């Protein structure tokens, strides 16, 4: 990159080090060097393209994109998201029409798949690839080349020491060879610049694993992102509500909601099925957390395919059913009172466990029964209370989530249910605008209510529970996990392995002719530097000094020239 990176180095210890040390710390990191603007003058198209590419893959751009990614995520956590709480989004749009419309148009209700968000992470992905490839090449080269020559002034490195050789010192070349041997024994990579009559040095380097770890980390991030994308394309997810005693089989029609990736063949889901035999819930009975759930258990009988032998499994919140590569998770539950309705002639026109939706912590639940096939049409709005009470202010309300004293408050209506208009209606709501109320009544299990004017009767014959299951299939989740694990391992290497360089130099002082080589008159220097400001460098350099002092002991005090 020529002149552009002179003086500015991508090295954390950079600004504190005199520029002379640049040689000594050269290539301690493969981080891209910063490009200064102005390098593009008259470069033409390829020049521009190269410049753009270098900008995109620069550390500064990576930093900027990371920032944008963080900031871009914030609306996704503040505003309701269509993928998480679609109902809340609708409510928000209704409450704040103007602002809501605006937010919607810029994808704020669907941040994580909004074009601008996708653009940020795609750019980051490209930047990541563009960063990893050259860095891997550089690192490969660095691992196979020898450590650089010792810089001229070792005393300016982060750690250094020096002493005058004593009279018993061996010949300088032997000192270098021995020092190199010791360093090799300590698993340093070593390069010896032979003694040339005046000076010679050993350069040693250690900690290549740091950069390797860093590259592993970045590659692992890439794997993770690809796995997430694959999971999105080949995975699917659905939600199903199953009442006690009823069965579920894995076909798309049985799901209340179903989301599949683009490449999923929804007509060909794994053919498993299960029956909810029983659902049990227990709750805290006393204290300030009274009513808080303590256990949820769904006893299932399941089959891998219609011909398989049935097996049993108790599914709990953190313990899904794993079948045919898919997983079924217990995510919710509620009550399904069994309601029986008879017409004026005493014939049973409705008899079914009816799903009620929870409205509060104590399972005060709402539900409706619609009877469009009798004339005039009949409908019931109902409130189910597992532990019934009547509050002076709030009216009928449940005071505990378990079935301690169940009751149902019914409101009967007659008229037009509005089902023939072709407008789809929720099964949990009833449009009473074209109906007249016949009366209201509270009944308990086993009781029935004769409607006024002999219009039939309604009874509560029992109460069942239902469980809600999320069924999910993500074929890429193991790749995502592998990416995550390698990311952590790589990160640990990258942050905890010290990358260091040390130099040992012996220099003969200008001396008189009759000095025997290796006797008094030589200076020994030991110095080191590290990739980061790490605490371990000082002891490491001290340790090497001690080792080298055993090879060349310092001259006794008083004789030394310093």
């Amino acid at each position: 990159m020529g002149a552009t990176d002179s003086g500015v180095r991508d090295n954390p210890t950079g600004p504190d080090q005199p520029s002379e040390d640049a040689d000594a710390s050269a290539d301690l990191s493969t981080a891209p060097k910063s490009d200064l603007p102005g390098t593009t003058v008259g470069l033409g198209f390829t020049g521009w393209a190269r410049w753009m590419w270098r900008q995109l893959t620069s550390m500064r751009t990576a930093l900027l994109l990371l920032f944008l990614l963080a900031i871009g995520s914030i609306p996704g956590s503040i505003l309701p998201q269509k993928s998480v709480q679609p109902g809340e989004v609708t409510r928000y749009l209704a409450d704040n029409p103007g602002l809501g419309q605006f937010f919607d148009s810029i994808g704020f209700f669907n941040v994580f798949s909004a074009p601008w968000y996708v653009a940020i992470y795609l750019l980051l992905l490209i930047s990541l690839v563009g960063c990893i490839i050259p860095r891997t090449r550089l690192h490969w080269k660095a691992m196979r080349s020898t450590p650089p020559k010792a810089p001229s002034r070792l005393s300016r490195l982060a750690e250094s020491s020096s002493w005058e050789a004593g009279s018993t010192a061996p010949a300088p070349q032997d000192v270098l060879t021995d020092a190199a041997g010791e360093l090799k024994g300590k698993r340093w990579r070593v390069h010896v610049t032979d003694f040339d009559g005046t000076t010679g040095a050993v350069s040693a380097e250690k900690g290549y694993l740091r950069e390797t770890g860093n590259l592993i980390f970045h590659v692992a991030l890439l794997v993770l992102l690809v796995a997430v994308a694959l999971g999105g394309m080949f995975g699917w997810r659905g939600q199903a509500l199953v009442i006690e005693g009823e069965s579920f089989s894995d076909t798309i029609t049985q799901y209340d909601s179903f989301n599949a990736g683009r490449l999923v063949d929804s007509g060909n889901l794994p053919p498993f099925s299960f029956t909810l035999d029983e659902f049990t819930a227990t709750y805290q009975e006393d204290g300030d957390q009274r009513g808080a759930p303590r256990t949820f258990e769904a006893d299932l009988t399941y089959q891998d395919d219609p011909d398989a032998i049935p097996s049993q499994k108790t599914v709990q919140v953190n313990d899904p059913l794993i079948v045919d590569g898919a997983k079924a998770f217990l995510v919710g539950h509620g009550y399904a009172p069994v309601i029986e309705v008879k017409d004026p002639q005493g014939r049973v026109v409705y008899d079914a466990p009816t799903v009620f939706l929870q409205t509060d912590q104590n399972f005060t639940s709402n539900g409706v029964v619609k009877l469009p096939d009798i004339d005039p049409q009949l409908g019931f709005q109902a409130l189910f209370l597992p532990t019934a009470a009547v509050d002076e202010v709030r009216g009928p309300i449940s005071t505990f989530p378990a079935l301690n004293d169940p009751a149902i408050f019914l409101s009967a209506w007659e008229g037009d249910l509005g089902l023939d208009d072709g407008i789809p209606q929720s099964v949990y709501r009833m449009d009473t605008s074209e109906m007249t109320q016949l009366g209201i009544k509270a009944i308990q299990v086993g009781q029935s209510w004769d409607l006024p004017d002999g219009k039939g009767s309604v009874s509560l014959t029992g109460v069942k529970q239902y469980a809600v299951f999320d069924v999910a299939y993500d074929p890429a989740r193991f790749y995502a996990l592998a990416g995550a694990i390698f990311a952590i391992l790589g990160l640990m290497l990258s942050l905890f392995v010290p990358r260091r360089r040390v130099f040992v130099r012996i220099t003969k002082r200008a001396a008189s002719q009759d000095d025997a080589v290796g006797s008094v008159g030589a200076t020994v220097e030991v110095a080191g530097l590290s990739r980061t400001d790490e605490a371990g460098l000082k002891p490491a350099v001290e340790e090497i000094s001690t080792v080298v002092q055993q090879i060349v002991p310092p001259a006794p005090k008083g004789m030394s020239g310093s």
Partner: protein
Amino acid sequence: MSVNESLAQLSNGLVYSSMAVYAGSLVLFASSFASSRPLAEAEAATEEVSAEEISIGEASAGDAIAAKNSDAGESRATTATLDRGAGDAGALPPGRKAGNMAMSLMWLATLLLAGGVIARGFSAGRVPWGNMYEFSISSALAVAVVFLIISLKRDIRWLGMFVVGAVLLTLGLAVTILYTDSAQLVPALKSVWLVIHVLAAIICGGAFTIGAGFTVAYLIRDRAETKAAANGTEVRGWFSSRVPAAQRLDTTAYRINAFVFPLWTFAVIAGAIWAENAWGRYWGWDPKETWAFITWVIYAGYLHARATAGWRGRKAAVIGLLGFAAFLVNYFGVNFFASGLHSYAGVN
């Protein structure tokens, strides 16, 4: 469903006692800080002494800043040594004695708090971080423990006042607003991942907090140093003159954050594995997940910035603080204000 009431009460008693002792420690830390003489010089002095002990001939003043510091400290080196000698004779320098007592009280308070946290766990027969109250007392403990561990290696009494202040604030919030009686877990939390994921997050919280303390101190001290260098004066300022050199603060902050980052990565991944095991998707952009991600990305940005030309020093430090802010949003903001799958923290 049974909860051991006497252990639960013991736990409450221990938590309250620890608060009383922390309060004493806070007062002593504050008075120690106020009456201490500039600490950077004392530290530089200690360094000189140890350098001599190792008796490596040439001074290792490698970089310009270290050289500057030791120059400044040199004249006081002898004073510091004298102080030490005098200390043996009983006349400690100003603030020293209060500082030592503050440290002792902090150890005591932290032991009491640890007892309280452990008793709370045993009272319900599970890990003591099943709701916001427990999460808060455990986090306060983590902050104190991280501080004490670092204090074993170096003198960080100057930071004590702020750390104990943060611990007391957290405990105060815990025992007033967040308190809930000891009880069993809700089913959603019954998982080994509660132990692993939340423990990792709590340790990260402790270390991020101390790291942020160093970062704030760095920013303040660095400004004072820059001013001092421009004016050719000594470092001034009630706070700045009593804390170590900016370079050291920055390095320590980096080491702490670099230590926590892989652990935070692990905590997030452990959470993802748990989510996969409980809800069938390892990532769903629920507010808690989103803010964990934001925190992670900002700290990654911090580490990146430290390797990017023109971004080291103050800019990187500000990014680090933004990361900590995101962590706090995740801890407090999301639990109180957002509705999501993670909303079983026991706050009504």
